[in-house]
C-alpha cells in the first residue's frame, strides 16, 4: 500500500508550537522507509499519526489515495511494533500473537496456523506457552514482531524495535527484519535514531530535525550528497570535517590557513559565491597521505584510534582547529608528529554558510 503524507503537522494540546509541520512524504508500496532523526525530533509522533494513535492537526494522510485522517487505528490495516514491545503481560506468547486475529473473529484453525507460522519463522515455538515475564528481552522483541506479523497488514510500523537489544542481537535482527519485510511484501515504516540501522536497512531514508524533513532519499545519497549542514554532520561516522571559509578567485580559502582549488564541477556551482562565506566538508577517508602539488594541509597528530583495518587520526591544525583523518591501518603514525595530507577533490562538499544548504 502506498502511504502519502501531504503537508502534515502536529501540535500537541498544551504546547505553544507545532512539534512537526509541513511534512510531505511519499512512501511507495513495498518500500522500507526509515524515519531517522535525533531524540525528540518527532519521529514517534509522526509514526503514531500514521497509526492513528495521535490525531493529525493539519494536512492529509492518504493510504492508496484514500484519506485516513479520521479512520480508527483498527480499521487502517496496519500493524505496529512498539519501542517498549507493549506485550500483554497476562497472556501467553501464543495468546499475545493470536489476540488481534481473535478480535477480528478469525476462525480458530486459521489463527492457529498463522501463529505457528510466525513462531517458526521467529524461532519461538518452544516458548509459545510462556508469559512475557518469563522470556528474555530478545525473545520479547521477537514476540512483538510476531504479534504484528500474524495480521498480514498492509503497512508495518516499527518504533525503534531494536533499541533495547545488545549489539550482537541487534546486528542479527537487522538482517532478519529486512528478510521479514521482503517475505511479507508490505510497506514498512521504521523509526530509529541509529544511522547504521537506517543506512543498512532502508530503501528510503527520511531525516527529520526540528520538526522538518531535512532530506529524503536513498541511503547512498545521504552519504555522498548531504542536502545541508545538519545532514552532513548527522550521517557518517566519524563525523564529516567542516571548514568554514571564503571563496576568492574560484579558490576556497579556509579560515584555518589552507587553500583548496576545487575541481571543475564544483567551480561552476561556486561561481556565484565569489567573495562569499561557505563551509567546506570533507569526510575522514578523503584525506590522502603525502604532499601533492596543490591542496595540501599539514597537521599534528593528537590521538590515534587503531581499528585494525584502518586507523583514525585526530589531528590539530597549527591554530588549534581539530579534524579527523582515516588512513589504512598499516601506515605508521605516531602521536605529536606533523604530517602532510592532500585533499581528494571528488570528496568535497560545499555549503552556503548563511542558509546551510548544499551548493551544487
Amino acid at each position, binding site marked *: 500500500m502506498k502511504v502519502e503524507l501531504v503537508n502534515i503537522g502536529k501540535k500537541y494540546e498544551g504546547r505553544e508550537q507545532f512539534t512537526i509541520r509541513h511534512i510531505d512524504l511519499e512512501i511507495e508500496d513495498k518500500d522500507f522507509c526509515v524515519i531517522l532523526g535525533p531524540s525528540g525530533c518527532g519521529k514517534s509522533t509522526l509514526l503514531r499519526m500514521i497509526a492513528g494513535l495521535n490525531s493529525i492537526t493539519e494536512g492529509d494522510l492518504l493510504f492508496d489515495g484514500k484519506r485516513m485522517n479520521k479512520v480508527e487505528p*483498527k480499521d487502517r490495516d496496519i500493524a*505496529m511494533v512498539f519501542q517498549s514491545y*507493549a506485550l500483554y503481560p497476562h497472556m501467553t506468547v501464543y495468546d499475545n500473537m493470536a489476540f488481534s486475529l481473535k478480535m*477480528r473473529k478469525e476462525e480458530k484453525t486459521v489463527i492457529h496456523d498463522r501463529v505457528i507460522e510466525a513462531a517458526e519463522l521467529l524461532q519461538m515455538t518452544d516458548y509459545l506457552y510462556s508469559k512475557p515475564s518469563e522470556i528474555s528481552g530478545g525473545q520479547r522483541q521477537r514476540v512483538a514482531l510476531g504479534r504484528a506479523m500474524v495480521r498480514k497488514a498492509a503497512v508495518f510500523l516499527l518504533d525503534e524495535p531494536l533499541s533495547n537489544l545488545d549489539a550482537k542481537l541487534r546486528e542479527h535482527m537487522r538482517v532478519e527484519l529486512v528478510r521479514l519485510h521482503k517475505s511479507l511484501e508490505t510497506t514498512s515504516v521504521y523509526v530509529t535514531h541509529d544511522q547504521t540501522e537506517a543506512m543498512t536497512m532502508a530503501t528510503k531514508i527520511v531525516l527529520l530535525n526540528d520538526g522538518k524533513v531535512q532530506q529524503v532519499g536513498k541511503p547512498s545519497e545521504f552519504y555522498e550528497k548531504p542536502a545541508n549542514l545538519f545532514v552532513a554532520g548527522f550521517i557518517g561516522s566519524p563525523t564529516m570535517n567542516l571548514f568554514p571559509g571564503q571563496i576568492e578567485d574560484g579558490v576556497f580559502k579556509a579560515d584555518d590557513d589552507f587553500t583548496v582549488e576545487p575541481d571543475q564541477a564544483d567551480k561552476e556551482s561556486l561561481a556565484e559565491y565569489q567573495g562569499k562565506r561557505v563551509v567546506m566538508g570533507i569526510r575522514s577517508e578523503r584525506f590522502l597521505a603525502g604532499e601533492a602539488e596543490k591542496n595540501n594541509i599539514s597537521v599534528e597528530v593528537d590521538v590515534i584510534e587503531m581499528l585494525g583495518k584502518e586507523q583514525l587520526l585526530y589531528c590539530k591544525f597549527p591554530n588549534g582547529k581539530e579534524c579527523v583523518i582515516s588512513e589504512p591501518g598499516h601506515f605508521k603514525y605516531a602521536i605529536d608528529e606533523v604530517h602532510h595530507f592532500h585533499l581528494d577533490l571528488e570528496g568535497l562538499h560545499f555549503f552556503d554558510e548563511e542558509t546551510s544548504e548544499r551548493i551544487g
Partner: protein
Amino acid sequence: MKKKKEKGLYLSDRPPLTAVKVGMLGLSYVLLFFYVFVILWPLAQILFASFNGNHGSYIQIGVSFSFSMKHFQYLFGKTYFLNWVWNTILIALATAALTLLFVSFTGYAYSRYRFKGRKASLMAIMLIQTIPSFAGIAAFYTLHSIIASIAPWFSRQMFLILIYAGGGIAGNTFILKGYIDSISSELDDAARIDGCGNLQVYRLIIMPIVRPMLAVIALWSFIGPFLDFMLPSILLNDPRSYTLATGLHTLINDVRNMHQPVFAAGGLLTAVPIIILFIALQKQLVSGLASGAVKG
C-alpha cells in the same frame, strides 16, 4: 547419593548466620509469637464462651466449661439472626458490586483521559473524603425522605448501600487510578491497533492486569458493611432490617435483654461469609502480592 553430596553445600543466597544474628532471629520469633498470642487469645475466648453452656446472660471469668449449643439455638430461634445475615450479605454484595463497577470506570477514565475539570474533580473527591460520612447524617435523612416520596420502593437499606458505595467509589478511584497509571499506555495503543474499542481495552487488557487491586477493593467494600455500626443503627428502624453489627448489638446494649454468650456466638458466625470471600479471592490476592514483590 546425590542428596548426600549436597548436604555439605551451602545453598542459600544469604550470608551465613552469626551468633548475633541468631539471637536477633530468636528475638523476632518471640515478638511474633507474642503478637500472634495477642490476636488469637481474644478469639479463643469468644470461641469458648459461645460454646460454654455454663455462661448465663453474662460472660464471666473463671466459669468451668461444659459444651453446649444453647447459645446458638437461642441465636437462630429467638432472634432475627438469619435476617441480619441475609441483610448484611445483600448490602455487602451490592456495595462491592457497585463499587467495583464504578471504580473501574472512574479509575480508568481518570488515568487515561484528559478532560475539563479532571484535576479539580480529583481534588474535590480527595477533600470530601476527609469528612466522615456520619457528619452527613442529617443530609442523608432529608435526601432519603425526598427520594422515598418520589419512589416509595426505595428502602432505607438501599440508601445504606448508596452511602457505602459512594464512599468506596471516591476513595478507591484514587487507588485504582494510581495502579492503572503505572501500566504503560502503549499497551492501550497496541490493543487499539489490534482491534479493541475503548471498553474492550479496559475489559480485555487493563482489567486482567489490575485484577489483584480489584480483588482488594472488592474485599474491603464487602467487609465494610459487616464492620459499620453507626450508619445502620441510625438509618434502619425495623429490627428485621438490621445488619449484623446493629442486630447483634441489641443482645448486649440492654440489661433486660442481655445475652453476651449469644453475642459471642453471633460474632463468631459473622466471620464465616468474610472468610468464604477471602478464600474465593485468595488466588487473585496472592498473585498480586507475588507480582508486586518481583517488580520491586
